[in-house]
């Protein structure tokens, strides 16, 4: 199935309906501070078990696109980003809304989100097939070194210090180790508990890390209140004249967002930060950033939406999540017996094209839904946590239990929720944990295959060109933070 056929399929009622449900629910949940796309997707995965796999993935992808965009509403009207990726939007969106222009702020955000998403969709469609062909040439050492590189990359640029990111990643890997080792049939780290034989299932871990930890955080921050700015008579449809002056900023931010999305493991928050910084650096009026400047909103929103498309590229072509939220998409694919990677184009080409076309359609739907529903969503985003917290936990219970009818999985949700909360509280990033957990089996399998091919030698890591490049990049990102710190201290000393 090529792209045209994919569109023919996507424009039929059923896939369109799932995409629409995904986008609309994503926007709604993304707009509520404290909830997010990851939470919604993790809670929805169990409901998709009985669905057609393509519909399920389209639903989840719609949720992802919708939630990234929905965060803009609360970032602008409440000064509380609905999702972390909308953090940079808050800097200019809220001041602009305070100045009596909430409609302009939202229209800029909606338009930039839409165009950022479209540009990244074009990159996705153009780049994914050749990258998948290239990835077919990868052997186990290339995959092993690439996953290592991804883990180092996400650790080095996450919140907090690199050591914390690395610890989080290794904790994620360790959490994935207990249970039956598929390659040699050995049980490990079960400590004699029968429930541990299957190890920790992906879904309860995701529900714990993404949902339960957030519920605990929301409860701790129950008194965090925001003053909502009214959106009564503001125009939300972006004017063409407004866009002409932002063309370069828009394209630059979308490309930066897409590129950062392609880097394995790096999420939308980093994209919007980098794009915002670049927009400020190239701006003729950098002093206006942070005071309600149009360029700031355009840069942040174009980048975070473009990131979603970019992040699909490594997921589809290599089976490596481009961002922590994509780990849920990867998990859902695996649960639906779809193995993302270069062979996916050959084994399940219809799904790949539907996925890529679906991403494009999801962005168009997002634009339309945002235009017509923002006013309504803006009125109801301040939902009382007393209702949300217990209901969401009940859905966690249902989701975790449904997987294999074990109450042990519900305990896992609670345990990983508490662990995730404390890690987050101490500024240990959770992204590396999730990516580490999801990729451990893949990492170990490729290391094992590589060692079998090389009779136990690790030398192919350095003798195979692509593998060497990945190792060098990993080493570079491992050293970079230490070098930067040393350099900063040296300059401080020199300055007196």
């Amino acid at each position: 199935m090529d792209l045209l056929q994919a569109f023919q399929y996507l424009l039929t009622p059923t896939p369109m309906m799932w995409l629409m449900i995904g986008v609309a629910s994503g926007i709604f949940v993304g707009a509520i501070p404290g909830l997010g796309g990851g939470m919604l997707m993790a809670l929805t995965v169990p409901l998709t078990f009985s669905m057609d796999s393509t519909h399920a993935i389209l639903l989840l992808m719609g949720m992802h696109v919708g939630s990234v965009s929905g965060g803009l509403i609360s970032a602008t009207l409440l000064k509380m980003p609905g999702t972390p990726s909308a953090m940079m939007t808050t800097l200019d969106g809220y001041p602009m809304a305070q100045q009596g222009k909430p409609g302009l702020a939202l229209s800029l955000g909606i338009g930039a989100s839409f165009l950022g998403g479209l540009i990244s969709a074009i990159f996705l469609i153009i780049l994914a097939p050749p990258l998948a062909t290239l990835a077919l040439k990868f052997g186990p050492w290339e995959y092993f070194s690439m996953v290592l590189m991804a883990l180092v990359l996400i650790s080095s640029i996450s919140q907090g210090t690199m050591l914390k990111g690395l610890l989080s990643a290794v904790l994620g890997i360790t959490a994935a180790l207990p249970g039956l080792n598929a390659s040699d049939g050995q049980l490990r780290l079960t400590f004699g508990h029968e429930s541990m034989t299957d190890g920790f299932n992906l879904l309860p871990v995701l529900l714990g890390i993404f949902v339960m930890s957030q519920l605990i955080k929301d409860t701790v921050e129950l008194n965090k209140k925001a003053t909502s700015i009214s959106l009564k008579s503001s125009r939300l449809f972006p004017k063409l004249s407004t866009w002409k002056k932002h063309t370069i900023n828009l394209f630059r931010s979308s490309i930066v967002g897409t590129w950062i999305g392609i880097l394995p493991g790096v999420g939308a928050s980093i994209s919007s930060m980098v794009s915002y910084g670049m927009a400020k650096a190239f701006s003729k009026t950098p002093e206006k950033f942070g005071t309600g400047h149009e360029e700031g909103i355009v840069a942040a929103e174009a980048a975070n939406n473009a990131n979603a498309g970019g992040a699909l590229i490594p997921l589809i072509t290599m089976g490596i999540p481009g961002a922590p939220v994509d780990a849920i998409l990867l998990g859902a694919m695996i649960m639906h017996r779809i193995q993302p990677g270069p062979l996916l184009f050959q084994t399940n080409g219809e799904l790949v094209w539907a996925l890529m076309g679906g991403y494009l359609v999801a962005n168009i739907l997002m634009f339309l839904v945002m235009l017509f529903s923002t006013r309504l969503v803006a009125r109801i985003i301040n939902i009382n946590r007393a209702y949300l917290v217990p209901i969401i936990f009940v859905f966690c219970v249902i989701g975790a239990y449904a997987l294999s009818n074990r109450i042990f999985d519900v305990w896992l949700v609670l345990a990983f929720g508490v662990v995730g909360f404390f890690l987050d509280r101490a500024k240990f990033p959770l992204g590396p944990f999730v990516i580490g957990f999801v990729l451990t089996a893949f990492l170990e399998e490729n290391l094992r295959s590589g060692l079998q091919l090389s009779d136990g030698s690790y030398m192919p890591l350095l003798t195979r060109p692509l593998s060497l490049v990945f190792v060098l990049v990993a080493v570079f990102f491992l050293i970079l933070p230490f070098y930067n710190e040393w350099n900063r201290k040296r300059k401080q000393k020199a300055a007196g």
Partner: protein
Amino acid sequence: MAGDLLELKRHHTNSLFNFRWELRFDTAGSFIFSRMMSTSQQPIQDYIISGCTIVLAGLVLWGAQDIPPPFFDPLGSAAVPKVCAYLLILIALGICIRRYFENRAGSNSNPEAEGYKSEPWLALAVVAMSILYTLAMGSGWIGFRWGTVIYIFVTGSILARKHYPVMGLSLALGLLIGIGGQYLFTQIFYIDLP
């Protein structure tokens, strides 16, 4: 352990008010809990998480001892757990050492103003309720339907803090999700519930 914690507490107390407030917690557990729930207590949180990580790594090493040696591939099942455990210890020590030198140099990245009164005990109550809910269903004391009604009502009421209209709505939502949810998930989505 408790002595060390008190020593750390003295080091990281920023004001007399905080110090007096902390003195009300007479056990190490309460002290750790109060510190871990704060967003402005980076040093002690780092030490506690690193300590827990080292304990976890010890557990992994202990568990890896029971794994038989490889018999057909060079790696075996024990290698990755062992490497992870050593890495965890190394990184955790690195975090502690870094934090120690940062403290000595007086370059803490905290405090971070929260701007609102945090509710750690409320969060503890919600987690406790969630544990009770899971325990009750897991041990067969109560089924999903009525367990959910009670859980949503009680947890909602705790979070509502005597705001009666919210408590009333929580009860209504509990009935809706408990009774309606059971029908929806078991009869329509064919999902088993506890």
